[in-house]
Each structure stands twice: as C-alpha cells, then as structure tokens.
C-alpha cells in the first residue's frame, strides 16, 4: 500500500467541538418504557412486520423482515410486548409519519438465540455465509446513509475488490461516536474489517482516521498489532471537512478520482464505516443483531456524552434521562451541524443512521450558529475555493435562483454532495445548499411530471389510434352492408346469364356460318359426277341448317 496521501479540492478546517464528549467513556442509555421502532431505518424498501400486537418479543428477535434485495431486517431492541403497529412521527427531514412497531419493554432485556460462528470457522466460511449473517442481523451503513451492508459486501458486475476502506474520518464537528468506538472497541473494528475483507475478497484494508483523533489512531494500531493482521493498516488523514465523504476519502488515500456517475467498486474499492465493521463483528461472532448504536449527545447539554442507545428510544426520553428539559429545547439536529437535519418534534425515535443529537436551547445559539440576513452575491468566489466537488457554487446559485434548470445541470448540480462548505464561507450568508436542494427536487419533480406526461401522451395517442381504427372498421362494415344491399338479385342474375348464353350462341352460329362460307379445298378440276355429289351434300347441309335455325334453341343447346 502506497503510504503517500493525496488531497482533494477545497474543504474547510472547522472547529471540531469534540473534546467534551471524548473525555469520558461511552455510557449506556437507559431503556425507555416504550420503544418506537420504524420499519424503515435504511435506504431501500421498508421491512414487513412479522409480529402482531400482543406478541411477546425477545431482544434481537426479528420483528420485521427485509423485503426485496435492498432492505434490512428490523429487530426488537429489547424484550417486551408489541403494543401497536401504527404510523408514528419518525426522524426524517420531512417530519412525516411512518409505520413503526411499538414495543412496551419488560426491563428484563432477554436475548433470543441467534446463529454465530466461532473464531476458528472463519477462514473456511464462504463469503455468502458471512453476508447472510450480516443481512439477518439487519446491519446498514452507520455513517449516516443507511445502505444495507450485506449488499455492499457483494462485489457486483464482475468487479473484483482490491481495497476496503474503513471510514473513521468523522469529519463533522461535535460527532465523536466513531472516535469513542475506535478507542474503546478497536478489536471489534479490526475483526469486522477482516470479516468484510473476507466477504469482499479484498486484499487490503485501510482504516482512515482524521489526525485530530490521535487516541483512536493509537488504539487501532494497537489492536491491529495484537491481532497480527498484516494487510490492514491505519492511515491518519488531515482533518479537513469533508474528508469523510466517500469519494473525497478515496481521493485522499489513493489519488483515484471516482468518476461522477461511477461507484467506488468500479475502481475496486469499497468503503464502509468503522461502526458498521464493529456491528458486523457483533453479528458474526456474538450473534447480536443491530439493535443499538453509539450516539453523540452534544450542543446545549449539561455535558457532551457518547451513549449506547437502543433503536426506537425516543429523543425526548433520552434528553430527559440526561437532565435536559425538553421544554427548554428550541431545535434538535440529527447528525452534524454541516449536513444534519432538524427534527420537527422531540418524540421521534433514534434509528440506525442517527450518529449525533445536537441540542439547541431557547435563547441560545451554537457557536458559529449565526446565520445573518442574506445579501446579494458579490461573486467573491470563496464558495468555489472550498467546494470539494470543484463546482462553481455561485453559478449554481445564480441558475437555481432564476430557475434555469437546464443550465444548472451544465454546471453539474447533481455532483453537489450538499456538504455545506460553500454556504459556510459565503460572506453574503446566502442559503446556498437550500437553493441546490430546491433545484434538485424541482428537476426530479419535472422529470416525474415528464414521465407522467409521457405516459398520458402515449395513452392519448393510443386512444386516438383506437378511435381512428374503430372508425375505419365501422366505415368498412357500413360499406359492405351497403354493397350487399345494392347487389343484383338472383332473378336478374339468371336473366343476365341467359342473355349471355344467347349472345354466346349467336356468336357461335356466326362463326360456324363464316366457316361454312369458306371455299372448300380440292374443288378444282372436278368431274361432273363429283360436282353433282357435292351439290347434293351441300343442299342437304343447307336444308339441315335451315331446320336448325328455325327451331328455337333449347336450354341445353349450348351445353353440347
């Protein structure tokens, strides 16, 4: 492995505000009386419930099963009774409700039995077995995206995987859950890395950690040394936001720029979060499904903390448990301050992708939380300087502002990763990312409308075609009917046939007559006797002919 580091364009050095939550160990969050477990905590199709209200469930038991290839199982985060399956508010920027399974906990937290493997089995296992264990455990990408991990562990489309990148960059301010995980559970991360490498057939793995986490780097190096793994290395990368962006991280480590419309796997690279690796280890070796994660609780809180939280724990329960009065809270950000989203209400549950809960209290602002009034763009170009995708944010803004959605795509709108760097540095305080989201959703809506319009047009055209066809068919039928009406009667036909027969007969007679008028041959130099014989014959013939013409023709005469 090349030990050189590369760089990506732009980025920001941000004050990280991580010290508060990293000076104490990870704490267990208390178990709430009710867990509200959404059926969709991942990218893909929602899981299908396999329990019904009143059912007793055990910790780690599947309560909703994955449907389709890109989906994930949902497990009971603690033992208890299913009290409802209904729509509840969930952690989503839209603030919409989604189906959830509500489990009233019994406090016993009794685990169900799950298949595990022992350490000795590991190298002999087929990658499929590992993927199956990980899929059953409902593991999804824990860095925030929530893509089902088992899918991302299967090299697809004939790509072979050279390098597994474990993302421990954690570049957003405040968030330190991965940092604490690596400090306290480094062996699990290393073990997870080996599982993932085996599943992918990857030859090497790199654990990338920002250089503002020296403790994590040391802990990971120690764990690697004690595990005696040679093909996994730890790399300290510069703490420049957004170094944890998948394509930026790959560029930093390898110098490879993943093309805009390609995936890292096309270059033989797969990227997973360190917490996902640790979850894979728990699933494979301990038989523990994905039922909890480490969440950083920060902002206007008595003390910044890292908590092991069961999925389904309501945010306001969590706040109350750590001496935060929800009535005093004015805003809650899920995720970091750069890319996180705000909650509409406090009673939504923590889910698999929720890495940080950033609390703001009424009458207070987070440091750097001051968004002044927006002024016109002065084209200073600071945004372009910091853009990690090397776009021209102010041009994008200009075209989004004037709703020129064709032009904005020429400036590569869809390569924008919404990291917020441009917005952060904008001296005019223009909410740039909001403009880009607006433009993206408008374009999606237009495309959706266009699709619908295309279908409508096709339907319309087919209807026109059908009407036209029916019209011609009807006209044809009418014509046939009319023809049938005007067609000659049988009597008239008969008459015509008779007339034709007469005409034919007359014709025949004429022909014969003509033939008879022809001069017979060998009649020169006839003897008188011969001449007389001929005359007699002719006379008879004439007589006979006269008789025939005088007689009216009978019906069969022409049938001869």
């Amino acid at each position: 492995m090349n030990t050189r580091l590369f760089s990506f364009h732009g980025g920001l050095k941000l004050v990280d505000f991580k010290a508060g939550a990293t000076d104490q160990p990870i704490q267990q969050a208390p178990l709430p009386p009710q867990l509200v477990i959404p059926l969709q905590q991942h990218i893909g199709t929602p899981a299908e419930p396999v329990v019904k209200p009143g059912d007793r469930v055990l910790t780690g038991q599947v309560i909703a099963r994955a449907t389709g290839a890109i989906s994930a199982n949902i497990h009971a985060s603690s033992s208890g009774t299913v009290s409802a399956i209904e729509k509840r508010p969930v952690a989503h920027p839209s603030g919409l409700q989604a189906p959830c399974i509500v489990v009233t906990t019994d406090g016993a937290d009794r685990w169900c039995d799950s298949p595990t493997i022992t350490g000795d089995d590991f190298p002999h296992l087929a990658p499929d077995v590992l993927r199956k264990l990980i899929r059953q455990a409902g593991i999804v990408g824990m860095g925030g995206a929530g893509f089902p991990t088992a899918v991302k562990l299967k090299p697809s489309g004939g790509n072979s995987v050279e390098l597994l990148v474990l993302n421990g960059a954690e570049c957003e301010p405040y968030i330190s859950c991965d940092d604490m995980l690596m400090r306290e559970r480094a062996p699990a991360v290393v073990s997870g890395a080996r599982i993932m490498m085996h599943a992918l057939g990857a030859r090497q793995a790199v654990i990338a950690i920002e250089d503002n986490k020296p403790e994590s780097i040391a802990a990971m190096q120690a764990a690697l040394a004690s595990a005696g793994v040679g093909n996994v290395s730890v790399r300290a990368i510069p703490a420049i936001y957004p170094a944890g962006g998948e394509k930026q991280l790959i560029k930093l480590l390898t110098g490879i720029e993943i093309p805009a419309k390609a995936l890292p796997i096309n270059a033989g690279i797969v990227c997973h979060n360190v917490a996902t690796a640790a979850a894979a280890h728990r699933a494979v070796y301990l038989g523990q499904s994905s039922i909890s994660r480490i969440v950083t609780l920060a902002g206007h809180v008595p003390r910044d903390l890292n908590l092991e939280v069961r999925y389904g724990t309501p945010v306001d329960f969590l706040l109350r448990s750590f001496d935060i009065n929800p009535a005093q809270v004015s805003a809650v950000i899920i995720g970091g301050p750069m890319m996180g989203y705000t909650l509409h209400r406090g009673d939504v549950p923590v889910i698999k992708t929720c890495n940080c809960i950033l609390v703001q209290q009424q009458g207070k602002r987070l440091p750097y939380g001051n968004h002044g009034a927006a002024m016109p763009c002065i084209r200073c170009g600071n945004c372009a300087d910091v853009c990690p995708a090397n776009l021209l944010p102010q041009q994008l803004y200009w075209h989004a502002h004037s709703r020129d959605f064709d032009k904005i795509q020429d400036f590569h709108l869809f390569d924008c990763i919404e990291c917020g760097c441009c917005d952060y540095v904008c001296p005019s305080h223009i909410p740039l990312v909001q403009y880009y989201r607006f433009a993206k959703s408008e374009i999606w809506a237009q495309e959706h409308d266009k699709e619908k319009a295309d279908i409508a047009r096709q339907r319309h055209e087919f209807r026109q075609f059908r009407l036209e066809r029916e019209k011609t068919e009807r006209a044809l039928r009418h014509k046939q009917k009319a023809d049938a009406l005007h067609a000659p009667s049988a009597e008239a036909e008969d008459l015509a046939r008779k007339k034709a027969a007469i005409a034919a007969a007359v014709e025949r007679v004429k022909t014969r007559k003509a033939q008879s008028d022809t001069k017979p041959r060998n009649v020169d130099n006839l003897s008188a006797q011969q001449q007389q014989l001929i005359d007699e014959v002719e006379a008879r013939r004439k007589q006979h002919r006269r008789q025939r013409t005088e007689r009216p023709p009978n019906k069969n005469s022409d049938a001869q």
Partner: protein
Amino acid sequence: MTVLRTSSSPHIHGPNSVPKLMFTVLACLLPALLAHGWFFGAGIAVHLTLACATALGCEALMLSLRDKSRMLFLTDGSALVSATLLCFAIPPLAPWWLTVIGVSFAIVVAKHLYGGLGHNPFNPAMVGYVLLLISFPREMTAWLTPATHSALHYDFGATLDLIFNAGITGVDAVTMASPLDHLRMELSRTHSMVEILNNGELYGRLGGTGWEWVNAMALLGGLLLLWRKIIHWHIPVAMLLALLISAGFFHLLDPGRYSDPMLHLFSGATMLGAFFIATDPVSAATTNRGRLYYGAGIGIITYIIRTWGGYPDGVAFAVLLMNMAAPTLDHFTQPRAFGHGERD
C-alpha cells in the same frame, strides 16, 4: 418542545460577512490613503469626507427608492470602498463638486441602476472616474507635486477655501500634470526619457514623486488583503506581470522612447488597480483561470493606453474594458468538476 425550530443544513456559518470584507478592504487601503494624504495634503481628507458623505447619501436615497433595507446595505461598507477608491483619482485641490458628481454617478448610475450591490457589471469607482476624466479633463489633471504642495504652506482653512470657493482658478498657477500625464506629453514632444526624468522634481526613484510611495503602500495593503484571504493572487499577479512584461519588452527595444517598467509599476493607479480595483469581485472574472486572463488583459491594456493612448492613465479604462469581458472569460474557463474528464 412539541414544535421545534426547523432549518436547512448547514446549521453553522463561518465568521465571514460582506461588511467584514468591505471594512477589511478599507483597513488595507489605509496605508496608501495615509501616504496619499502625506504627500498631497489636507485636500485629500476634505475630498475623502465629502466622497464618503455623498456615497452614503446616494446609497440611502437609492435604497429607499428601490425599497431595500437601509439597515442592511448602508452598513455593508461597499459604498465607502467605492468612494475611497475614487478619491485617489481626484486632485487634492479640485473643486468640491467634482467629487460629488463623480461619487453620485458611481453610486446612483453605475451601482444602483444596475441592481445594486453584487449586480453592477462595471466597477462603480472606475465609472465615476472615467465620467469625470472625460467631462472635466482640466480639473481632473490639475495635480500639485508634493514639493509644490509643501512649499505652498496651505493650512486647513485655506485648503477648504480653495476647494469650496475658489475652485481651480485659485491654484491654477501652481498645478501641473501628474507624472504619468507629464511623461506622456513630453514623450509626444519627442523628448527622450532621460531628458524628461532629469527635468524636474516630478519623478522619484521608482515612479512619480509621492506616487511611488502611494503605490508602495497600496502594494503593502494588497499583501495584507492576500494574507487575510480577501482577494486571490491571480488578478494582481497576472496584471502586474503583464504590465511588467509589456513595459520591459518595449523598454528593451528603445529605452529612449519607452519608460522603465518600474515607472509603470510604481506610478499612477497601478498598485491600487492591481490589488483594490481589478480585484473587485462583483465585476471581475470568478474562475481562477479566468482571473489570470482578466488580470493580464488589464495589465496589457493599461500599458497600451499609457503608451499610445490619449489619457494620462489607463488603469480605469483597462478595468472597464475587462469588466465587459469577464462573463465571457468565466464561461470559457470553468474548472473541471470532481469525477469529470477533461472535456466534460
């Protein structure tokens, strides 16, 4: 907490702001302004005060006519920057109305009629200056040398009186062309460089007396701007290099007819232009490659106008001409987006 405040990410913002930017520019202009005042006397302070007051007055008027927030825009500092830059071009004992007309035109027409802050295609200060130069060439070229100025011993009251009452007639006898203007006129009279430069107290070691210090201080201020990351290096470096190379080339061809490149770099509005005027983000090119072309264009046009044109200094015209080219430059110099091939 049933109803929480929602907002779109990012939820934090850097400390940068337009007023901060503009007042940093003003602070970086201070060394050059002090040098200017040191050599050309109290008249500079009078005109500066007048210019700033006019600028704020016009700004307030236009903002209320356009129904914009006066709170937000009067305090942004942009009008003050335009006014200050224009002040460098106004002779210290020029009549008061010169400043008032120039600044009003810059703010009302060049800035607000084009849409206000961020929308003006041309640098307002330069538009104001060019208007004055074309309309009042006599008043605009009546400079004093620093030496004459100190010899005159005008006190502040006398200066005020000259500016507000006497107008140009009072000082007509002692004013003369600025060094660049003088140089151009003398060269057109086929005097050689050596004759011209030895012939008077108008020229210092590098450029015009006094002007070389104003330029040196503007260079210092420009370096501060670079250090504070207010401007990018591309425009000033490209402009100064282009001017240096063009001047150097012709100077090497015929030192008798073409002045020393150093004289070009340290006279007139060169340094102010390179660091404070050409770098005005609103009217300049915004891509890094575009900035290089833009700066180089200004350098070359400045040299052409100074050497063969009819005006004493070419920076203002060069900036305005390149302002016109900026959108085209931007269009053709888009950077390659991440993950896109060279031709994408």
